[in-house]
Each structure stands twice: as C-alpha cells, then as structure tokens.
C-alpha cells in the first residue's frame, strides 16, 4: 500500500520512474557479481577437498593441474571406510556427540524451565551467570581441568585421562550454557496463560514441562540440539589435550594426528577423511537450515 503511494509521488514523470528502475536492475547485477565472488571465496576449500579426495596419490604427486581430476578414483573412500581405525574415530565422534546432546538436553531443559517460569532465590543472577559462562572459552579452562582430572585420578584411582568418555564430562561445559540461554528465551515467549491454565487444572510442574513447554518450544529445542551436536562434533582442543591413544580419538584429532605419518602427508586420504568428517553437520544443516539459523541468531538477537 505504501509503495503504491510512493510511486504516485515519486514518479510524476515517466523519466524519473525509469531511472529508478534502471538503478534497481544495476544494483541487482552488481549484487550477483559480488555474491559470486563471495561464493567462490567461501566454497573453494570444500570443493578443493572434494576434488583432491577423488585423486590417487600418484596423480597428486604428478603435479598436473591441481584443480582438475584426470583419473577419478574412489580408492581413498574405500581405504578409509574399510580402515578400522578411521571407523573407530567416527564411532567415538558419534558416541560423544549423541551422548553430549542427550546430557545437554537433560540438564538444560529443566534448568531453563525453572529459570524462565519458577523464580527462586538467586535465579536472576544465575540466568546472567549462565550467559557469562557461555563467554568463557575452552582455551582458558583446559589446563586447570587437565590438572583437576589428574588430581582426581590420583585420589580415586579412576582414570580420567585418555578415554573418549572423559569428553562427556567436558563437552557439556561448552553446550549447556548456550542451550539453556536460548531455551530460557523460547520458554519466556510462551504465554503465561497456557501454563497457568494447566496448573489450575491440576497439572504438576513436571507435567506442565513435558505436556506444554516441550511441545510448544520444540523449534527452540531442536535448534539447541543442533547447536550442541555441531559443537561436540567440531571440538578440537579438549580431545587433543585429554586423549592420546589412537583408539580413543575423535575425528578432528584423529585425522590431524594419525593420517599424517611423520613428514609424509597422504593428502588424498586426509582430504577424504576431512570431507567425510564434515559430512554429518553438513547433512544436518542441509535439511534443518532454518532451525540452524534460528539457533545462531537467537544467541545474540533474542535473549
């Protein structure tokens, strides 16, 4: 409606109108030109990963045009997918990520519900504190945690280093604060009448949470789950510091440490391994892009 009114005012003569349209067309063309340049910059590494993954070591060593595959082969894929070591990395990564997502949800959903709806002494401070802990980086905590785990090992005899499941203690520190934070936002946006009605009808708090909040806030929960999965799948510092034996490594560390043997880099295999390792988050992203983006923007825009 407003645009109609503007056309009336802004185009008293046809000439002005046409020049505005002309501008628009050129703005659009320039947009496409620059977007293409950006797309080339952003997509070159993954595409080059794929190109290299189709080459044999002989072709990589032959120093032909690196951007073209002359003799495509699946030998790298076959070797990796039949290598028990690589499949071991994949299994460790999958187990760690799935369990981390589960633990994160079990901790974050009740906590977010309590903080968004049921005030208790110090809950306001706690909500702010959660956001602050989200800003504390892993690079600040890995050394004290490493020492703490070593001390616990000394006292109790439980080996807390060099096991993949040790990461299940560490990863929630990265995922829970953010997951709780965005879920407080989602829960707070649910109209109060909804849960008040349920409470009046005799529902317990737990029933209110499971019957009303979780179904209504499902998009937020999915976004938080995707976030937790991506973070645990990509985490590099903790597994590098806390795990060392080849059978306990997760993908990012496994690829960077074991596929590089001495100074020999088998680049075809490294690129294949990296591409397959990047596949799960990419596949999730391809199907659930909107949840992914809502989770991403929720962190700073909502709150």
């Amino acid at each position, binding site marked *: 409606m407003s645009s109609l009114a*503007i056309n009336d*005012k802004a185009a008293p003569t046809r000439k002005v109108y046409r020049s505005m349209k002309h501008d628009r067309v050129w*703005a*659009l063309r320039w*947009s496409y030109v620059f*977007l293409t340049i*950006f*797309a080339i*910059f952003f997509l070159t*590494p*993954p595409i*080059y*990963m794929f190109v290299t993954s189709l080459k044999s070591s002989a072709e990589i060593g032959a120093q032909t*045009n690196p*951007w073209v595959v002359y003799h495509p082969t699946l030998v790298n894929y076959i070797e990796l997918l039949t290598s028990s070591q690589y499949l071991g990395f994949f299994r460790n990564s999958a187990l760690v990520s799935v369990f981390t997502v589960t633990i994160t949800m079990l*901790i974050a959903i*009740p*906590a977010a519900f*309590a903080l968004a709806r*049921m*005030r*208790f002494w110090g809950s306001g401070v*706690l909500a702010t504190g*959660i*956001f602050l802990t989200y*800003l*504390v*980086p892993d*690079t600040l905590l*890995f*050394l*004290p*945690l490493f*020492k*703490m785990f070593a001390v616990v090992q000394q006292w109790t005899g439980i080996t807390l280093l060099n096991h993949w499941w040790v990461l299940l203690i560490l990863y929630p*520190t990265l995922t829970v604060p953010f997951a709780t934070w965005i879920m407080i936002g989602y829960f707070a946006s649910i109209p109060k*009448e*909804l849960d*008040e009605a349920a*409470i*009046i009808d005799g529902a317990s*708090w737990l029933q209110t949470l499971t019957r009303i909040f979780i179904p209504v806030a499902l998009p937020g929960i999915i976004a938080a789950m995707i976030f937790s999965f*991506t973070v645990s799948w*990509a985490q*590099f*510092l903790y597994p*590098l*510091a806390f795990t060392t034996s080849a059978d306990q490594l997760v993908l990012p560390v496994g*690829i960077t440490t074991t596929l590089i043997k001495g100074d020999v880099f088998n*680049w075809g295999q490294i690129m294949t391994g*990296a591409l397959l390792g*990047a596949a799960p988050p*990419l596949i999730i*992203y391809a199907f659930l*892009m909107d949840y992914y*983006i809502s989770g*991403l*923007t929720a962190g*700073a825009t909502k*709150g």
Partner: protein
Amino acid sequence: MADIAVGAQERGIVRSHATSRSSLHKWAKRKSTVAFFMALPLILLIGILVVYPAFYSMHLATLNKSMTKFVGFGNFQYLFKRDTFWMVVEQSCIFAITAVIFKALIGFIGAHFVHNVPANKQRRWRGMLLIPWVIPPAMGTLAWLWLFDPSYSAFNWILTHIGLSAVPWTGDAYWARFSVILVNVWAGSPFFLIMYLAALKSVPEQLYEAAAIDGASWWQRIWYVTLPMMRNIIAITALYSLIVTFANFDIVRILTAGGPVDKTHIFATYSFRVGIESADIPLGASVSLFMLPILAIAATFILRDIMNRGNEA
C-alpha cells in the same frame, strides 16, 4: 482462550483465599524448592567445571613447574622477560583485531548483497554462504593447509600460471600471519553475514522509501538509515566474535602450529605448547590468563546491552 485462562485464574485466587495463608506460603516455598532442584544439575556443572577451574587456573599460575611450591608472580615475571611472550601478545592482538574487522566488513557487505537479491533466491545464496561456518574448523583448516602446501599449493599453481611468483603461504613469518587471518576470516564471516542479514530484515522498508524520496544516495541510505538501525547488533556481534577470535585455537594450531619461529603463536596455542607439550601447567595457565582482561571488557559491554534490552521489553 485468554478469557478462559483469566477465569481460571480468578477461580484459583478465590480457592487460595479460602485455604489458610500458611499453606499458600508453603506452596510458594515448595515451588521455589522444586525450581532449585531442577536447576541444580546446571548449577553443579557450571560451579565444578567452569567457575572452579577458572579460579583454580589463577591458583595454578602462582605455582612452580612441578606444582609443589608457591612462587607468587614468578611465572609472570619469567614471561615478561621473554621476547617470545611479547611476540605472542602482539600477534594475538593483530590476529584478533584484523580478523574481526575483516569478518565484520565481509559479513556486512555480503548481507547487503543477499538482501538485494529477490526474496525467493535469498535462501539459496544464504545457504551457500553459510557453509564455511558449518564445516568443523579443524576440517576446514586442513583444506586450507593443503591449498597452502609448500610444494603442491593449488593457489601457487594459479599464481605461476598467470605469471606471478609463488607465495610461501605458511613458510614465511609474515605470509603465515596473513594466512591464519585469512582462514579465520573465511571461517568466521558467515556468522556475521547471517546476523547482519537478520538485522537488515528488521529495518522497516518505509525508512528506505522515505530516504529515497528525499533523494538520498545509496551511500547516504547506508550511513543514515542502515547503520544507526543496526548499531546494536553490529556491536554485539563484533564483541562476541572478538572473544571467540581472541581465544581461537584450532586454526592456528593446524595451519602453522605457531611457527615459523613462533611468529604466529596466539595465547591459546602458546599456552597449549607450554602447558601440555612442555608439561609446564602453571606457566601455560599464566599465559592463558592474559585472555581474561579482553574477555572481561567485551563481556561487560555485551551484558550491558542485554540488560538494556531487557528493560525496554
């Protein structure tokens, strides 16, 4: 629906008036007790695995290498005398500030172009441009490492074919500094792009139409309409990214591991080198503590913004 809810609420109040005051009090108390127990796992997790280690780190920084003796500020005095440490401070600042500026610029420009494109094509472009953010940083950096390979670099192949000389991407100290920033910008700018695109969409179209009628050029439209409307989100995103970039580990670790001759070390990689690889945990903790001031400043500003927005709402 709202009427029913209000009715129910009134009935609830009437009923609670009927019961004695003390049981109402008890009920409120029980609600907060339940809430506390629901939040307890979170409190324990944050307390034991985030807050305690943060303070423990400060304690560790005051011990000697074998962690048997209190040395006060001995570790810091030792660091201040080392050229390598000052180089790490310098490089961390250069790395974080340059990378954040370029990420913000590319994100801002990119968001504008995506916003210009017809709405039905925006999804596709947005999906494509966000891919670097989805790829785990360790994997993406491996691809760059291969693109930068000293003898097989695919970039150098192009450069030599168009008549330029090959570039020592990770071999020369200054090129290596450039390379780590380039990879960080690649991995981080999609985040800015998405945030800015979301912010752009929230700017009312009427403002641009009004500006166009007043004869504003596209530059004036950006300067007087877009930037003021997006000021908050630009600041928040940049501060958040400053924290993450300052604390970055994966990219530098994989691309250069701090080399050549420690020129690309930043706080995180240097503290890993010292703390884990040289097994001097106290010294490593001392190095990582230097991230705290930047973190505290950025966090304060972010928090202030969130509080302000909370008051408006």
